[in-house]
């Protein structure tokens, strides 16, 4: 076999170079391709859509039970169930119940995104290329944002398609004509929020494991607060102080669920069977003001991006 | 001291070390090989980080893996460049001395001694995170020496050292070898390994190609005759005389016209004959040297074979 060293033509590259604007995409693509190969990510993606899958099964059997049976009683029961279903609430529940798997997805995707680069001193390599800090930051952000967006959007769109095709006669398209664009906006914000926050945490450490644990701690400690507010609301007979309604959303998933409620203009209902019955105390916490919660999310995203920017550096000087 | 008997190690389908049998005794022995030859795997087998898939690895007749007793006699300076970065060098060496079983006072005094030996006494209180590559190498050597082991294994110890540092390191290893210790050094820097020792273990693709003294190994490589460069301002006259010798195989002229290269399978006889030619026949020979009687050439010959 001829030695490859004799062929030196590869050493002189005089072909086209990509324009500067594609540098961030190289970093993003690397992140996306690496993520797509992770088995646990594939499993978690499937798990995050569990509510939609369960709803499809429930609705299928309800529909089959109604249309397959010959009795009027069966049809009336089925009609009663379907009338109770608030369609936008199903998407709210699908989004809400995806939050815990989404946390794990974010940890898998983003905990080591910058921390591992800190550890292996890869930033020296990145920033010694014609690659700016902004390219690096945007590339890392997009590399996390896109997979999260896809993981959330695909089941939502599929469930939307199934409902649109199967339950239009129950007012699916009529009751919420803007449902799909609204959900896409919610998913965009959620993906951006998680990506920005996990990048900021990752940039603070040089071990992905510690960054992941920190992000998980932030999630669960704030989540407890939401649970506590939820219990306070539930036990207050509708007389809970005003801050409870706002503090309920004072957590990582609370903010996102609050944004979803505000965009969909719903306070939610009971999962699966839907319907809102009974006193105020039995109803879910009302949606927060859209402007306020949007601003909070945007401030957190911007603040996280700023923190990440400050932490990205090629060399750490040790005294 | 260190015995390997038909030791092999697989990583799935990939052979890391293939049926290696050798003994490593007191003195400095160089472990040589290209990248991926199996040097680090061999080091890990001897230091008990891995078990051989087949065969055995013994230190002083004791199996290594999971045998803490062996580590009293063994010191290991790994290739990795990772430490407890928030610790100082002194704390790191003292900590490892304590883990060897020494009391606090004993560990401290030993750490001071080895840090002075490796030239880190005045810099050992800084955090390791701020150390240069050479300083980190010295700290690694210090922790390998702190418990005064009978055998020290060093994986690429000269990496990152400046020329002065390398010279000091080589001298230190020589001193340790003179104390009767077994030193196994894995390195790519052949000309410096040559200054340390003439005893080598050469690995290629997991197999042991050669072991023993450099000169003896060179003698045994029949495929490549010895090359001797003879310097003379009248190379053609010298060549005319040398070509008639029965043990000279080939003569080549240097393009610059001030030397010629002789190939012979009997270098001993050739070297014995040169003075006779100069004194008796007044041949104008100004000097001679052997371009391939060195580690790099031997390495190349054996690996290509």
């Amino acid at each position, binding site marked *: 076999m001829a030695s490859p060293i004799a062929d030196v033509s590869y050493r002189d590259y005089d072909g086209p170079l990509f324009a500067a604007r594609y540098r961030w995409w190289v970093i993003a693509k690397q992140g996306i391709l690496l993520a797509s190969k992770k088995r646990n990510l594939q499993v978690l993606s499937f798990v995050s859509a569990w509510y939609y899958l369960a709803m499809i099964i429930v609705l299928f059997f309800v529909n089959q039970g109604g249309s397959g049976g010959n009795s009027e009683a069966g049809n009336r029961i089925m009609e009663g169930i379907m009338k109770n279903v608030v369609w936008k609430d199903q998407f709210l529940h699908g989004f809400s119940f995806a939050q*815990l798997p989404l946390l794990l997805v974010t940890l898998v995707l983003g905990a*080591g995104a910058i921390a591992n680069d800190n550890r292996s001193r890869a930033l020296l390599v990145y920033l010694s290329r014609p690659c700016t800090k902004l390219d690096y930051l945007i590339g890392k952000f997009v590399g996390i944002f896109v997979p999260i967006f896809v993981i959330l959007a695909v089941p939502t769109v599929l469930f939307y398609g199934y409902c649109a095709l199967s339950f239009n006669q129950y007012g699916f398209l009529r009751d919420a004509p803007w449902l799909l664009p609204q959900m896409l906006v919610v998913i965009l914000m959620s993906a951006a929020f998680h990506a920005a926050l996990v990048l900021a945490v990752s940039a603070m450490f040089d071990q992905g494991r*510690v960054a992941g644990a920190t992000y998980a701690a932030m999630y669960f400690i704030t989540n407890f607060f939401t649970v506590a507010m939820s219990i*306070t609301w539930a*036990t207050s007979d509708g007389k809970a102080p005003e801050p409870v309604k706002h503090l309920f959303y004072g957590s990582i998933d609370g903010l996102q669920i609050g944004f979803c409620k505000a965009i969909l203009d719903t306070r939610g209902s009971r999962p699966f069977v839907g319907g809102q019955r009974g006193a105020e105390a039995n109803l879910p916490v009302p949606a927060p003001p859209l402007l306020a919660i949007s601003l909070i999310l945007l401030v957190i995203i911007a603040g996280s991006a700023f923190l990440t920017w400050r932490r990205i550096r090629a060399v750490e000087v040790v005294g | 001291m260190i015995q390997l008997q038909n030791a092999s190690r697989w990583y799935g389908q990939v052979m890391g070390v293939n049926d290696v049998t050798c003994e490593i005794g007191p003195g400095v022995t160089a472990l040589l090989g290209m990248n991926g030859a199996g040097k680090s795997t061999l080091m890990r087998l001897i230091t008990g*980080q891995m078990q051989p898939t087949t065969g055995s690895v013994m230190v002083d007749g004791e199996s290594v893996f999971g045998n*803490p007793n062996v580590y*009293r006699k063994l010191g*290991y300076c790994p290739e*990795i460049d990772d430490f407890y970065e928030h610790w100082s060098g002194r704390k790191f060496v003292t900590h490892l001395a304590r883990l060897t079983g020494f009391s606090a006072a004993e560990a401290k005094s030993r750490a001071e001694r080895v840090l002075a030996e490796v030239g880190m006494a005045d810099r050992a209180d800084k955090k390791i995170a701020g150390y240069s590559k050479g300083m980190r190498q010295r700290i690694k050597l210090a922790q390998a020496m702190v418990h005064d082991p009978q055998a020290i294994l060093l994986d690429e110890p000269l990496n990152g050292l400046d020329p002065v540092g390398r010279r000091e390191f080589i001298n230190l290893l020589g001193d340790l070898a003179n104390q009767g210790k077994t030193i196994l050094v894995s390195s790519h820097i052949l000309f410096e390994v040559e200054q340390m020792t003439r005893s080598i273990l050469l690995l290629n693709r997991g197999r042991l190609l050669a072991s023993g003294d450099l000169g003896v190994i060179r003698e045994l490589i029949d495929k490549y005759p010895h090359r001797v460069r003879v310097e003379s301002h009248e190379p053609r006259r010298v060549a005319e005389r040398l070509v008639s010798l029965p043990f000279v195989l080939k003569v080549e002229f240097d393009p610059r016209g001030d030397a010629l290269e002789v190939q012979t399978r009997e270098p001993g006889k050739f070297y014995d004959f040169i003075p006779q030619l100069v004194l008796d026949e007044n041949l104008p020979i100004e000097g001679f040297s052997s371009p391939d009687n060195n580690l790099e050439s031997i390495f190349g010959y054996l690996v290509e074979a």
Partner: protein
Amino acid sequence: MTLYLFQSTLADFLRPRRLLVWTVLAVVLFVMGRTIVSLNPSSKPDAIYLLMSNIILYRIQMLAAAIFALQVIGAEVEQKTIVYLLTRPMPRPQILLARTLAAIVAVAFISLLSLLAVATACGGASWSQVPIDAAALVAGAFAYTAFFTLISLFIHKAMTICLMFAFGWETGIPNLPGNMFWVSINSYLTGITQAAKRDATNSAISAFAGGRSATEITPMIGWAAMVGFTLFCLILGGYWFNNNEYVAREDAE
């Protein structure tokens, strides 16, 4: 050597910068507790204490256990310093035991610090519950840390698994119908404290406190299970660590 390794590992785990983080967390818990108490004027402070001690404290303990347990061996392998530990004349099970015990003590300390913060925030009658809750937290520190250390010996990237166990399994299983609560560590800890019985009127809190398990798991069963489980994890971990290879890995987590 074992004692020295335990002491040096504990000192490393609880060095000032790390301690500061956990102290800040305890302060956050205190602030949270005061906020919840002030927003629930109709609820008794010890009901709030029950809520916090049964929900957040054990979650923090599990999180701390995951962080410290993965530093026993997992972090050493990841940062490639495992070679220094394994080339010392110290039996591997002793190395594992010393470091695991240090992690357990660290987790117990952090749990007790958090407990103190919560009890201080809620005040009043909650102080009478603190001793038994502290004992349960210590038992939890042993069980969770030993278990997560065992997981980290089997699985290279164990943090995700540990977090899923902590916040998925341990949160959901005790509250499932049937007898599933028997396979949750949290059920036994709740059994030790008999927490759900303290405020049986509040079904929401009881639900989160694992109401069913508290009636079927007595304190004696809880203690026996936790001791037995911890010993099992430590012994199996020691055997596994002694007979398997732990070589520095090139790929980071």
